[in-house]
């Protein structure tokens, strides 16, 4: 199993303080806090509709927070202009809930897409072909370059989406329900893949899930998002031993 890392001593790569976000009368986030350390796997759990996706979208500037501070590698993203934000985004991988592959493009074009804007990050002589091939090999789907997303199974789509996320070698990866909609076996494969990626590239990961098995395997630290706040923080063992009925509900 995983060696215990001394994570709290590592530097903080992602930090949210007192994040608030409402849609009209729908107060989704009411002062949410979190910290992600270098090399850590932080799992965030919450019921469906509790605002997990809203939180993660505020993190990358897809949604604008009403108030609170969000810092990504020491940059306050609420204060960045578009260009600076785009540069910062190259260091953050985002795996979307439903894979979000571009369905009018082939697998290869999907993987090349992030390279269009962030080419400067890779040295000029690095061949795009090599990058695409490497990314596909990482997820065990080397021969799918010319397929369309509609020709792939749900599990394959998720792998390709992960490959697309990895192609820029991000320092932080945000996973929005990486195993949702997959059968248990495929889900396990995706979790193993996430662990491999973490070990190979030393990334820090924020994983949103309500899959308790996924959390057990992968979490160094967990946060329960309940009523729009960081209701409970701790390791899997700590939280699963809790007597609080709201927390217990997650561990059945």
């Amino acid at each position, binding site marked *: 199993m995983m060696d215990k890392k001394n994570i709290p001593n590592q530097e903080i790569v992602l930090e949210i303080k007192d994040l608030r976000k409402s849609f009209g009368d729908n107060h989704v986030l009411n002062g949410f806090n979190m910290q992600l350390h270098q090399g850590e796997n932080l799992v965030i759990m919450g019921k469906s509709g509790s605002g997990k996706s809203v939180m993660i979208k505020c993190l990358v500037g*897809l949604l604008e927070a009403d108030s609170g501070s969000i810092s990504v590698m020491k940059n306050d993203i609420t204060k960045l202009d578009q260009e600076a934000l785009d540069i910062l985004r190259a260091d953050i991988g*985002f795996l*979307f809930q439903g894979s979000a*592959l571009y369905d009018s493009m082939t697998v290869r074009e999907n993987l090349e897409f992030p390279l269009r804007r962030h080419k400067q990050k890779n040295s000029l002589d690095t061949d795009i072909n090599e990058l695409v091939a490497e990314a596909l090999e990482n997820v065990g789907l080397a021969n799918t370059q010319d397929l369309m997303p509609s020709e792939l199974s749900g599990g394959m789509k998720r792998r390709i989406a992960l490959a697309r996320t990895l192609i820029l070698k991000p320092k932080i990866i945000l996973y929005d329900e990486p195993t949702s909609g997959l059968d248990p076996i495929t889900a396990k494969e995706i979790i193993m893949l996430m662990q491999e990626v973490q070990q190979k590239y030393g990334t820090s990961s924020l994983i949103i899930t309500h899959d308790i098995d996924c959390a057990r395997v992968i979490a160094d630290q967990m946060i329960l998002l309940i009523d729009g706040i960081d209701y409970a923080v701790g390791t899997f063992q700590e939280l699963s031993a809790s007597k609080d009925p709201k927390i217990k509900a997650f561990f059945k």
Partner: protein
Amino acid sequence: MHPAIPIYLVSMSGIHNIKTQFKSFLIEIGELSYFTARFFKEVFKRPFELKELLRQCYYMGNRSLFLVAITGFIIGLVLTLQTRPTLQEFGAVSWMPSMVGISIVREIGPIITALVCAGRIGSGIGAELGSMRVTEQIDAMEVSGTNPFKYLVATRVLAVTLMLPLLVFFGDAIALFGSYLVESVKGDVSFTLYFTQVFNSLEFGDIVPATIKSIFFGLAIGLVGSFKGYYCKKGTAGVGKAANSAVVFTSLLLFIIDFIAVFVTDIFYDL
């Protein structure tokens, strides 16, 4: 028996309904204007996404060419067949080419082609962008450093705006050809004679306003389709609604633009 509903309440709710509908129509116009302003702001900024623009031009032209040809042909045919008896009564069948030519080039060609394209291209853009929004593909583009408004919206709007005048020319030509077929059978007119008469009757003042009008038609189709798709509501029902309301709203807008165009052209003629 349930209590009778007072008649004035029924009519009041009817009025209320129309009022809210009108209000939401005005709000929609406001939002669309904002969207249009953003389009003009971003379309002239680098990078120009030329490859995607050309791909869209080809795709849109290709998808609507056949439909435009069929409708144009039928319109030309029908228009000539139905006008013929009346002209004959006045012994003015020789005016047929100029009459049909002017009405097709000035009015019928542009509006029919635009309506066909609203159904074909406008709804296509609405559905495509709508499903990209719902499945978070637009978000995925944004986090990978590509401005989705530029890449998806600006290219599509520009593509329809460029393609529509061409499709209108093409539709006009096919409609005139349909009209010629009727004349050659019923009136024994030669191809050269027919088209010489058509072109003799057409002036610069017929073609230029029609082309300008077509450009605006294209702009409307592209903008409304993109607007509906880009702000599509979550869920699969949202995608259908985006496509459908794109067509309805565009068609309405096309007639309004047509009305304004005729009005403006008329003023220029009087000068």
